[in-house]
């Protein structure tokens, strides 16, 4: 009896095993996905939907890694040759749901699409404006295989075109974009948020900022600025400068540089680098009117002075601090105003703050918040402290 039990135990292991074994070289690594509206005059569209007169909704483009044995060595041997061999494949398809398109694209490949190493999702401008982003991303949210640390970015224009870019340093466009997003430590001008935090942010209130990406010179790419999301739809863009200000308010800026005119010498500039900052968003609800105060404290180092080497005295430092404060204050004020008046999008979490701090008042105002928000008074306070002056010579 005992022997039979042991045999059954061993059989169970071997009979139930192996079912999801797929060798690494039988998988097709999806590195990036570009989501667009299906263009009406596209060949694919016309061909596929010739019978039905309805045109399809979406177009999906996948970048998959082209794996062949000599891929590594060939590109290595290229040396001075700038004409790098392309290492990725693009698949494009149209359909009414992304899963449908994926299945369609799988037919063309001898391998199984694998999303475990996906780096980016890029959403085209048109799609983002017309459709709820959460609904668009539904497949990726549901799929357990998806890497939750990937980036979601908005394209200024067509998302698909971006995969035709030729970043000189990288073999795969998607990995290039991923790594570029990680550079936000050095500059607050772009937004680095991963899949999980974006999804939770959008499900919570539907407002926020998403990083944006566009072509730069030399057919390369640049991650800069951000798209303003209101009710899970794109409503407008912020440029790099404004994004920086927004990140100050959101307390997410980890670095970045500020160049101000030297308060003592006209036409000369002083550049400081932010080494630390913290922002408190305060709400005052006197007379049941919410009033917001943005209180920003900046610590920075002087990195460059546009002049002959000079000794900086206490007074000079104080005036630099003052100039930086004024500059940042103006920057924040402009951005907040743009969000309030132009886009009417509560992307900086004012509503959330009110909800957390003064829940009773929030419950009264919640229904009309869209109307109230653009008129809410916001005041900005900035204080700056210069910590280091750099090496004296």
């Amino acid at each position, binding site marked *: 009896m005992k022997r039979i039990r042991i045999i059954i135990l061993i059989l169970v292991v071997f009979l139930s*095993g192996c079912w999801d074994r797929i060798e*690494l070289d039988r998988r097709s690594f999806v590195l990036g996905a570009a989501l667009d509206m299906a263009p009406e005059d596209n060949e694919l569209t016309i061909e596929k939907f010739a019978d039905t007169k309805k045109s399809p909704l979406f177009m999906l483009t996948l970048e998959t890694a082209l794996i062949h044995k000599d891929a590594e060595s060939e590109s290595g041997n290229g040396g001075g040759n700038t004409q790098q061999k392309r290492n990725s494949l693009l698949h494009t398809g149209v359909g009414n749901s992304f899963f449908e398109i994926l299945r369609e694209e799988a037919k063309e490949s001898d391998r199984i699409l694998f999303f475990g190493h996906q780096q980016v999702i890029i959403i085209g401008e048109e799609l983002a404006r017309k459709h709820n982003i959460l609904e668009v991303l539904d497949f990726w949210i549901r799929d357990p*295989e998806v890497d939750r640390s990937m980036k979601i970015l908005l394209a200024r224009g067509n998302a698909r075109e971006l995969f035709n870019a030729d970043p000189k340093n990288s073999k795969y466009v998607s990995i290039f974009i991923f790594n570029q997003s990680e550079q936000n430590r050095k500059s607050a001008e772009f937004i680095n948020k991963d899949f999980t935090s974006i999804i939770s942010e959008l499900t919570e209130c539907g407002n926020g900022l998403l990083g944006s990406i566009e072509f730069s010179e030399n057919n390369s790419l640049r991650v800069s600025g951000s798209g303003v999301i209101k009710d899970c739809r794109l409503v407008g863009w912020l440029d790099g400068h404004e994004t920086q200000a927004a990140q100050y308010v959101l307390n997410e800026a980890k670095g970045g540089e500020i160049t101000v005119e030297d308060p003592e010498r006209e036409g000369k500039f002083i550049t400081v680098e932010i080494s630390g900052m913290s922002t408190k968003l305060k709400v005052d609800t006197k007379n049941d009117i919410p009033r917001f105060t943005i209180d920003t404290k900046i610590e920075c180092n002087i990195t460059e002075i546009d002049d002959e080497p000079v000794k900086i005295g206490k007074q000079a430092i104080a005036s630099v601090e003052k100039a930086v404060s004024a500059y940042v204050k103006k920057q924040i004020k402009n951005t907040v105003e743009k969000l309030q008046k132009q886009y009417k999008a509560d992307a900086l979490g004012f509503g959330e703050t009110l909800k957390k701090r003064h829940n009773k008042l929030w419950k009264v105002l919640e229904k009309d918040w869209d109307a109230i928000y653009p008129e809410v008074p916001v005041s900005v306070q900035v204080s700056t402290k210069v910590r280091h002056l750099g090496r004296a010579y």
Partner: protein
Amino acid sequence: MGLFRLLSRKNRKKIQKVNTDTNVSKVFGDYQGIHLDKSLDNNIKSIKTIFRDCDDIVYRPFKIAKRFKAELVYMDGMVKIDAVDNFVMKPLMLEYGMAGIEVEDEKKAFLYAKEAIISTANIKESKELEKVLHAIMIGAVVIFIERNESALIVEAKGWEQRQVEAPQDEVTVRGPRDAFTENIRTNSALIRRRICDPKLKLKGYLIGRRSKTRVEVMYIEDIANPRLVEEVFNRIENIDVDSVVGNGLLEQLMEDNWISPFPQFMTTERPDRVTAALLEGKVCILIDNSSMVSVLPATMNDLLTAPDDYYERWMVATLIRIVRLTGAVASTVLPALYIAMVSFHPEMIPSAFALSIASGREGVPFPAFVEAFLMEGSFELMREAGIRLPGSLGQTMGVVGAVVIGQAAVSAGIVSPVMVVVVALTGIANFTVPSFDVALSYRLLRFGLMILSAVLGLYGLILGLLLILSHICILKSFGTPYLAPWIPLNLKDLKDTVLRAPWQYMSYRPSYMHTQDKKRSDLDKVGEHLKRRKGE
């Protein structure tokens, strides 16, 4: 397990106690109780009958002081012949030996020969035939004298043997360079020289129906747990084989769990290791004709420590131990982990690395686990061949093997380059394990884990590891938990595990040994050693 118990119970009934070398009954049971005869000729005749067709026995009839008939019998090759010539034969045969002594008859001659003439340290007389036979077999010289009912047994053992040499397998950088030899007496002396204490006890047995191999148990009386010592005696006494061919056989007959892949003894060729173990309250078993000494009980922790840990300073020693522990784990798990990740869970590999593994695997016709088995298999082949090859060829084999199997297999497209790295790492990691026995178990388990992870992925690997862990959690070596002091956890004893604490903090012996004398020194109070140095 049950089978073994059954066997040993059976044996227990069959065998009576076989004790120490003075009691050789049962050993030459056939001749038990037979006494020697008065007549020299009869005695020699019966000896010759017993040893018929044994042409290496030497009989030498002679006359003591030219008068009394006597005969000398010994086994050729096992006796120091110079000593016998100079200190036995010469004084007996030449008259000057008897000068000034009035020897009336053979009885007196016997007495004088024993007390005054033969000048060797170890001399006995015996009337029993079996003792005489035994003496001849172990290399003593036996002298029969006419009209005497007893014979003189002169100890003069001596044969060709290996000198004490440097250890072959357990090499250290700073430790002493002497290793055990095949001679049990040399081995016990190597240990005795290190522990100058009459409490260091040695108890001898003769084991093996035919081989009569000398087996000795050494322990320190007031440190070792008496129940442990008793258990060792008990198990040794119940061994019934016709020949003890080495430590391995004895260990396998004595161990708690013969179905376990893990060794339950620590086998070492280094006297310093044995000494350290004895001082921890352990018991060691020496076997004649074996250059290894078995130490028991063994824990996993013991098997993963090397003597160098104690010779180096504590921080370095701790680092080395961490390296070794990593090596032990890697040598068991690494190929299985590779299979699981490549075949089942590619999302766990960093993206860039996954891409490069994938491009390396492109064109490899086999799934990852076949690839791994091929490489691990050929590595084991090379290893086994390496042992068997003549010494001068061994080095060449290593190079050829590495080049042929590694480089050529990759360029032939049989395996991927990463697999070669994994196999090489695993192989090297396995050599960091200081105990050869436990390294072998890791090698064995590696294949089991590889199969499991080929079938069930990471899930199977974890399943296998849990199985191993639960096994060694219940495994005991002579009543000591195999994972002590981790399981059961004893925080104080952790000072000598991954961390090798400074000597000042090692003043207690490991508590899981339940020693009688618990303390090594009084340096356990913080700063005590500094105070003493200052003379406070």
